[in-house]
């Protein structure tokens, strides 16, 4: 039973990583940039939801909508102001700018919400699921998180595969210039991608803080890095890859803690990552890069 409950904890944590990783992966796929500020958008989303429920007294669902709206807008603004002017710059220049944006968001959050941690009230207030005579308890947050992850991955896959904007995203991700010649507004498409990624970040933030109810300006930093790792693990640019990578990372983290060592859990996670990348150099579901000679 212990194993099962660890596995479920792992999947739950992994689902959150997966939702964050989706944001990384989508933005990477289209703009070929690592948006290191993504983790901090999560933090903003969580604060928004917190403010709406704790200060204004909104319903949890409404607070999620608000968080998504704010983060979507934030994503678009960040993209327009900080990344768009660097469309033709090297990817490293954009990476450094993203790190600047990350510092900026963290420090502005520090000024607005102070460094004092806040306890986040879970937006999910359903009862836990008790199985096997209460030996296995699965909290409602876990269930909702896993469900949300599945729904989001399914939805995104459908959007990218069949919708007009999704096809435009794929076209832009393959060849920006050719896409423009088709009449696709590349800037708008990238903005939409950022908007979707940031909206997802808000969901991830709310779920993260519902499961682990501690809210600080730095709350997004570590999950951000882990999710970035997960995205690469699964094969960056691939939507199912992000989901797989995220969930595996969560599961390895929890099982590593449970069966090997709590002290070395990070070392275990990152070692597995290195080994996997050595065997599959482009991640689990990453496309093989074939260089044309």
């Amino acid at each position, binding site marked *: 039973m212990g194993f099962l409950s660890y596995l479920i904890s792992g999947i739950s944590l992994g689902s959150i990583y997966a939702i964050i990783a989706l944001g990384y992966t989508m933005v990477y796929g289209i703009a070929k940039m690592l948006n290191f500020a993504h983790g901090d958008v999560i933090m903003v989303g969580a604060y928004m939801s917190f403010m709406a429920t704790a200060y204004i007294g909104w319903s949890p669902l409404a607070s999620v909508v608000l968080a998504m709206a704010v983060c979507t807008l934030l994503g678009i603004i960040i993209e327009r102001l900080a990344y768009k002017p660097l469309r033709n710059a090297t990817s490293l220049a954009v990476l450094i700018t993203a790190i600047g944006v990350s510092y900026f968001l963290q420090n502005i959050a520090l000024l607005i919400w102070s460094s004092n941690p806040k306890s986040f009230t879970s937006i999910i207030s359903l009862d836990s699921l008790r199985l096997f005579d209460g030996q296995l308890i699965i909290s409602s947050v876990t269930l909702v998180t896993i469900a949300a992850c599945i729904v989001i991955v399914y939805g995104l896959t459908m959007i990218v595969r069949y919708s007009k904007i999704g096809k435009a995203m794929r076209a832009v991700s393959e060849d920006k210039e050719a896409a*423009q*010649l088709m009449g*696709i507004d590349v800037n708008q498409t990238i903005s939409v991608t950022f908007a979707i990624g940031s909206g997802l970040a808000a969901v991830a933030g709310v779920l993260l803080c519902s499961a682990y109810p501690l809210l600080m300006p730095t709350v997004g930093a570590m999950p951000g890095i882990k999710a970035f790792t997960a995205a690469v693990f699964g094969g960056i640019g691939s939507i199912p890859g992000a989901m797989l990578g995220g969930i595996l990372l969560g599961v390895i983290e929890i099982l590593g803690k449970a069966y090997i060592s709590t002290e070395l859990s990070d070392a275990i996670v990152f070692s597995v990552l290195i080994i996997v990348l050595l065997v599959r150099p482009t991640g689990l579901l990453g496309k093989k890069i074939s260089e044309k000679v």
Partner: protein
Amino acid sequence: MLKVDDINVYYGSIHAIKGVSFEVEQGEIVTLIGANGAGKSTILKTVSGLLHPQTGSIHFAGQNIVNVPPHKIVSQGLAQCPEGRRIFLQMTVEENLEMGAYIRLRHEIRGAIADVYERFPRLKERRRQQAGTLSGGEQQMLAMGRALMSKPTLLMLDEPSMGLAPILVTQIFEIIKELNQAGTTILLVEQNAQMALSVAHRGYVLETGRIILTAPAADLLNNDKVRKAYLGG
């Protein structure tokens, strides 16, 4: 129909296009010929809005399109089939065509696709295939078909013969002629000057960013200087 007036284009500090002017009339095939690096592709990219001229104006159907973003220029009826085909290799043939009609309404797309399939039956056979698996000639057909999807009044073709075997080159130029006869105005950029001049009505000769010569295509074919420099005669 298209009137380019004294444009200057820079790549960073390099003066790539130096005061180029030319015109394309309704129903014509006009070709720009010149050696590699003469600035042919740069001109097309400037017309379609991918590059911006420092000075000069470009009028299409009476409207100045300098500084209009490329995706808006497409919706005015100006399509470009870029150099190197640039099809979306990871999308299917049909999806590629749909992208070509991105600015059209949903119900218009079906008809447009049918038209393209009619012209290029090979594409219909391979509609579900990933574009990356097509052969070079098929990819060029797809690229042209995709450009036609937006129902352009002016079609710009950038090196359609590039990298194709002679037999396919002939086929492609046949299609260009057909398209023109069906009413599409064509601006053609080619290195294969012989072929280009054999289908075009008029031609401009470019050298290092300048137009040095303009005449009806037949005259250019017989021009000694042109023959020597570009036709290997």
